[in-house]
């Protein structure tokens, strides 16, 4: 009895990986620190996508101080792949790239509008050269444009 209790005791200390794989959890189990028995679903995801052997091999190839981050990122990727078997984390990359693209587009449009305003302000502040027709800028005819005050009453150019 006591021996079975001690065996039971050691079995109860198995990490999620060794529990799932039904093996003895060694003292130096590389997976134990990152796949505790309290979160079995975390290891199940990782095992389903990467395989326990691949995960152990990848973690062993990484310095100890970086293994926690690696295990977390592997878990995240595995979780996303389980949720989206076709695209996984790549779907997030695609979506984010699309958002970046649309944001850049909108930003460019607004900056173009700002540039137009700045150009217009600069044009209106300069009096037309004597003897020459009024300058036709990219903003089209300025015939109907009122004369701009030389002073900047609203101080928005500073």
């Amino acid at each position, binding site marked *: 009895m006591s021996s079975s209790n001690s065996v039971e005791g050691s079995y109860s200390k198995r990490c999620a990986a060794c529990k799932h794989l039904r093996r003895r959890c060694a003292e130096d189990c590389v997976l134990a620190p990152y796949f505790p028995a309290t979160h079995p679903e975390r290891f199940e995801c990782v095992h389903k996508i990467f395989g326990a052997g*691949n995960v152990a091999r990848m973690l062993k190839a990484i310095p100890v101080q970086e293994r926690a981050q690696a295990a977390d990122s*592997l878990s995240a990727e595995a979780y996303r792949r389980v949720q989206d078997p076709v695209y*996984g984390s790549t779907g997030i990359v695609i979506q984010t*790239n699309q958002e970046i693209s649309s*944001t850049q587009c909108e930003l460019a449009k607004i900056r173009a509008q700002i540039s137009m305003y700045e150009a*217009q302000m600069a044009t209106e502040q300069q009096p037309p050269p004597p003897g020459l027709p009024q300058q036709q800028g990219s*903003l089209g*005819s*300025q015939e109907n444009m009122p004369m701009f005050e030389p002073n900047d009453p609203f101080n928005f150019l500073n």
Partner: protein
Amino acid sequence: MATSHNPSLLISSTSSNLCYSTITGAGSLPGSNTTSSPCAACKFLRRKCQPDCVFAPYFPPDNPTKFQNVHKVFGASNVTKLLNELQPYQREDAVNSLAYEAEMRLRDPVYGCVGVISVLHHQLRQLQDDLNRARVELARYQAAANLIGNIGPGSALHAGTGFGHEQFFQPQNGTNHQTMFRGLETGGINVAYNDSSLAAAIGFGSLTSGGLHFLKPSTVGGDERPSQVLVPF
């Protein structure tokens, strides 16, 4: 077509059909030797490439690195299980996304694809901040223009036209969009706009594995992708 493997054709949007017909010899001349070259997976695993090999359509023999990466990170048996759970029309995108994630994991063993996502999110946040600042600045200009009274039927600052938004900013056949997209570099991942593949959104210009070009998120099967970012454990 049966024996020659044109990389550009294999990389095109219809690569799956082309690869399959190439690998299985469906396009070979009648009466000729129909033994086709084994796919990259079977070559790597040193086994006979069966006609119904699940890997053959997606791992052509002229791109061995693709399968080697996937095998190293995920393992052949896990990939087989994943593919068997999917519909045939979903498999090519799945394989290509697995290849992408494997490549990212090998480049960055600690963060892998998650690192790429973090970088992109950071970039997006910065752009959104820039956009908000630009909107505020534009609003100031518009308000000032209205106050000055430069509003008239002939005025280019006519508020109704949004300062000639339609007049003065016309994307030229989408080139502005594409130019910006092409210039995006993210941690070595060159986001290249390629309307034939998933690489349009990911970007594989910088990969050395012979070009992993993916299909666009499929319009073929109407596959639904999650609309929100999944939270890891």
